[in-house]
């Protein structure tokens, strides 16, 4: 068999692979004090990989490759853009963080780049095997990265918990995929979709198997996106991992899980909607409610953000879950809303983590109580913290409100008892969520700084300032002029058209 390969279409992946090899090689020859060059090279590589992305966006969509397993359409491009930007920001956040530990810098960047590569592959995957490889390439390096602070027991715990539950979820996912393969005899999404439709219409004997397979796959992805009740690893892992890795986990790794979940249910098993629709509904309702209530009790800022990101995952599931209850034709709108939510969430959450890194360095603690009076001691940091946390809470005119609006809008558009109930649950939850986000700003602005608090000396380094600037500007600009983000949602229409055609 000869494969048609469009090299421009896979150029972003190729650039990242090249960067991985270059960093690995360079790391061998660099003396210890010059190791920071590996970081520079990694950042450079990720930046370069964005160039073919722009070219691809401007040009005609390339034909599907590898027998339809690998597709570079607008939907894939938008997600690749998201993963590259999130990866770029994570790299910038890592630079000083890792340098201060003085070991294994090269390896750190190689692993992070591998994870980015995996997420790029994920976005294009249109069969179960490529999807699985992409997903594992995204998450496996993170098992190591989560335990990067070797001297810290919490970091060891983070890594171990994440590893064990990650492997468990992989096993469940793979089991589900194998059952799906057994029932349909195919791995490509198109063929699976056709076969599942047939089974749903006629073959009653295979129906339970497909249902079970779909549920297993959903559970597997639910671990990856840390939806309740499969979320137990997240708070411990986020707390113990290096903060840039927590940021990456809460954005890229979560986004990868969502993408995987949606392409499978939307492209491969839309016929089994009666199985996965209610499952997603329950995941959404549980994630929002449980995580928000748990977040109210957190005193550690990173644990709080962990619960917040679980709750946000619940909000992101809402549009698709509500649409699934309304019927197949509503799914397109649900998908669009989820992607818009994901993009906005990614930027504001990365900004929030960048604030956490700067504030932790300045106050010397990750406890929320240590942030008392931060706003008066460092007004700029206080304003940034307010921007990101209020945006996460969905307060206009910051970007988060638009994410909430598209979420509610898709719920109401789906309608029905299930839809309205989910909408009401989401509405109550957004109020609960506000309480703990407001608690952070309360500590920052309203509480008095402890009398013996040390003066702030170290200024944040240039790359963090840059990260904070990008994230803050985007958060405000998207909030005031949301059409910028609807562009991402519109990219999902290729997928919709593919399904319809």
């Amino acid at each position, binding site marked *: 068999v000869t494969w048609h390969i469009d090299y421009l279409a896979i150029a972003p992946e190729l650039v990242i692979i090249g960067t991985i090899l270059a960093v690995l090689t360079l790391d061998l020859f660099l003396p210890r004090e010059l190791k920071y060059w590996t970081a520079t090279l990694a950042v450079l590589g990720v930046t370069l990989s964005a160039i073919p992305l722009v070219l691809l966006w401007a040009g005609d969509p390339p034909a599907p490759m590898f027998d339809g397993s690998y597709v570079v359409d607008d939907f894939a491009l938008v997600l690749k853009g998201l993963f590259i930007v999130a990866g770029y920001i994570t790299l910038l956040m890592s630079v000083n963080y890792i340098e201060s530990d003085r070991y294994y810098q090269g390896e750190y960047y190689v692993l992070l780049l591998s994870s980015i590569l995996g997420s790029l592959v994920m976005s294009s995957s249109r069969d179960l095997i490529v999807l699985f490889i992409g997903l594992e390439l995204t998450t496996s390096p993170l098992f190591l990265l989560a335990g990067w602070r070797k001297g810290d027991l919490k970091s060891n715990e983070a890594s171990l918990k994440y590893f064990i539950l990650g492997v468990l979820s992989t096993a469940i996912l793979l089991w589900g995929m194998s059952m799906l393969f057994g029932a349909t005899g195919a791995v490509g999404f198109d063929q699976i979709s056709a076969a599942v439709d047939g089974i749903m219409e006629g073959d009653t004997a295979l129906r339970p198997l497909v249902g079970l397979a779909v549920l297993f796959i959903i559970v597997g992805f639910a671990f990856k996106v840390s939806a309740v009740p499969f979320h137990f690893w997240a708070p411990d892992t986020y707390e113990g991992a290096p903060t840039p890795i927590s940021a990456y986990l809460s954005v890229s790794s979560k986004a990868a899980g969502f993408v995987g979940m949606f392409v499978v249910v939307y492209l491969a098993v839309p016929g089994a909607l009666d199985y996965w629709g209610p499952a997603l509904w329950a995941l959404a309702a549980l994630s929002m409610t449980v995580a928000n209530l748990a977040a109210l009790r957190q005193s550690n800022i990173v644990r709080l953000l962990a619960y917040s990101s679980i709750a946000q995952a619940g909000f992101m599931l809402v549009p698709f879950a509500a649409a699934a209850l309304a019927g197949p034709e509503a799914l397109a709108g649900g998908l669009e809303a989820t992607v818009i939510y994901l993009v906005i969430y990614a930027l504001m959450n990365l900004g929030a983590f960048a604030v956490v890194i700067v504030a932790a360095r300045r106050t010397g603690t990750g406890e929320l109580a240590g942030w008392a009076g931060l706003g*008066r001691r460092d007004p700029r940091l206080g304003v940034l913290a307010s921007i990101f946390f*209020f945006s996460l809470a969905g*307060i*206009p*005119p910051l970007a988060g*409100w*638009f994410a*909430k*609006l*598209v979420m*509610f*809008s898709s*719920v*109401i*558009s789906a*309608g029905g008892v299930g839809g309205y109930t989910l*909408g*009401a649950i989401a*509405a*109550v939850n*957004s*109020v609960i969520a*506000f*309480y703990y986000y*407001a608690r952070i700003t*309360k500590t920052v*602005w*309203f509480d008095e700084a402890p009398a013996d608090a040390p003066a702030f000396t170290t200024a944040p380094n240039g790359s963090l300032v840059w990260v904070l600037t990008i994230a803050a500007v985007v958060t405000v600009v998207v909030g005031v*002029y*949301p*059409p910028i983000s*609807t562009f991402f*949602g*519109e990219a999902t229409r290729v997928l919709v058209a593919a399904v319809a055609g």
Partner: protein
Amino acid sequence: MEWFENGWGLSLIVFLPILGALVATAIPGEREDTIKRWSLLVALVTFVLSVVVAFNFDLGAASSFQFEGNTPWISAIGSNYHVGVDGISLPLLVLSTFMLVLAIIYSWDHWEEPRNPKGFLILTLILGTGMNGTFVALDLVLFFIFFEVVLLPMYFMIGIWGDKSMRAIPGFGREIPTRLYAAIKFFLFTLFGSAFMLLGFLAVYFQSGDVGGARTFDIPQLAALGSGGQFAGWGLAGLVFGAMFLGFAVKVPMWPLHTWLPDAHTAAPTVGSVLLAAILLKLGSYGIIRIAIPILPEAAKDWAPAIAVLAVIGIIYGSLACLAQTDVKRLIAFSSVGHMGFVMLGIATLTDVGINASIIGMVAHGLITGLLFFLAGSLHHRYHTREMSRLGGNLKLMPKIGAILSFTAMASLGLPGLAGFWGEFMTLLGSYNPLAGLSVDLFRTAMVIGAIGTVLTAGYMLYMLQKVNLGEPGEEWVGHEFHDADRFELAAWVPLMILILVIGFYPKLILGSTNDAVIDLVGNAYSVETAAATVEGS
């Protein structure tokens, strides 16, 4: 001047304050005078622009939107940047820009700890953008944004500059600062309501697509659909109205959703209380008149008796609560519950008289209660207490402040000849004769209870005057030097007093603008021939 009339004028009024706030961030915090002068300048220019709008407003066409601007904003969901004023929103817009100027003048040398005039004035200006924006927005999404934008500055004002005392809260193990409790309570209540309000807006949006062709968030278009009876057969209309009403009723606030108000108003710094009482509460009642009634008139009719009952409970409850207060500022705060009860009762009648009454009631309450909060702030500034048992004989210690307080209290209790009279009087008049189809018995009962409420209002206002103004100064104040009202205070208060007097004698200043628009609104919504003469004669 064409640019001024096609949206730019209103946009300037809305966005000048926030642009001014942005510029103010660049001024170093030590140069306090520069920041104060700049903020005042921005507020003054905004006010002058709104006066220009008022003078160029065509009263002959008060029921149609003027100075209108409409450009696409979020095209994906068909939401436009649509602004405009009609006779209903014009008085409220001018009130809003006016109060902003007075707030900045008053704050000139009244700074609550921890001072920081720069931060405070920036927040005040941002607040101005939210307030002005809500009154001119003609798109549901835009309205929602401005409605929410006011929350952040007010949250920070209460939380940072608010009441420093500690307070035991049921359910909390330890005492917490009053300002923190009040700030978060204020935000959570409003957010809870507005989340459901947003769901209601979205439901209307999708329904408009099902009945009227294109889905739209445009308020005039939706109102046209509503008055055309397009939403009449919609099974969810009652629920959707309820969702919107929840959002507005929290803001107003209506009993039993009012509990945030006494806490927030009492804990807020003076300027915060003034703007809360004068403008922020009106966002809720304005929303019902502008959005809920015209779009869902049938559902409004179903809900009207319930609204009337809640309003009347609010009137009586607010007045009785006032009689039980020992803190003068908290008394004024509770009086808002009663006064806004009258406003809501007026709206609930769904007649032109009632809604006119509610608008003039809103303006009067804004002026009067705003002034009362200024006075309460100044009293606290001098006595360092607001306990009425310790105050007394204020007229002897500070004759000017005492006299102004007496004047304002008289206005608040609805003395004929002052602004407060018209809202209460016309509301009671309106409830005698509610919209055809509403229970006459219920509304007449409400009228009687409301009338009892006016007596109670007089009761607690006179009680407050007696406690604060009359009698002999307490032992503890002997030998204290009290300085009477200074020039900044007088500069902020005298214009308010003049307006209270002018509106009291010449209510047409407000009604002349609102009447046609209200008659049109009610007439469109319920296709009734309204008796225009009832209001014109006043």
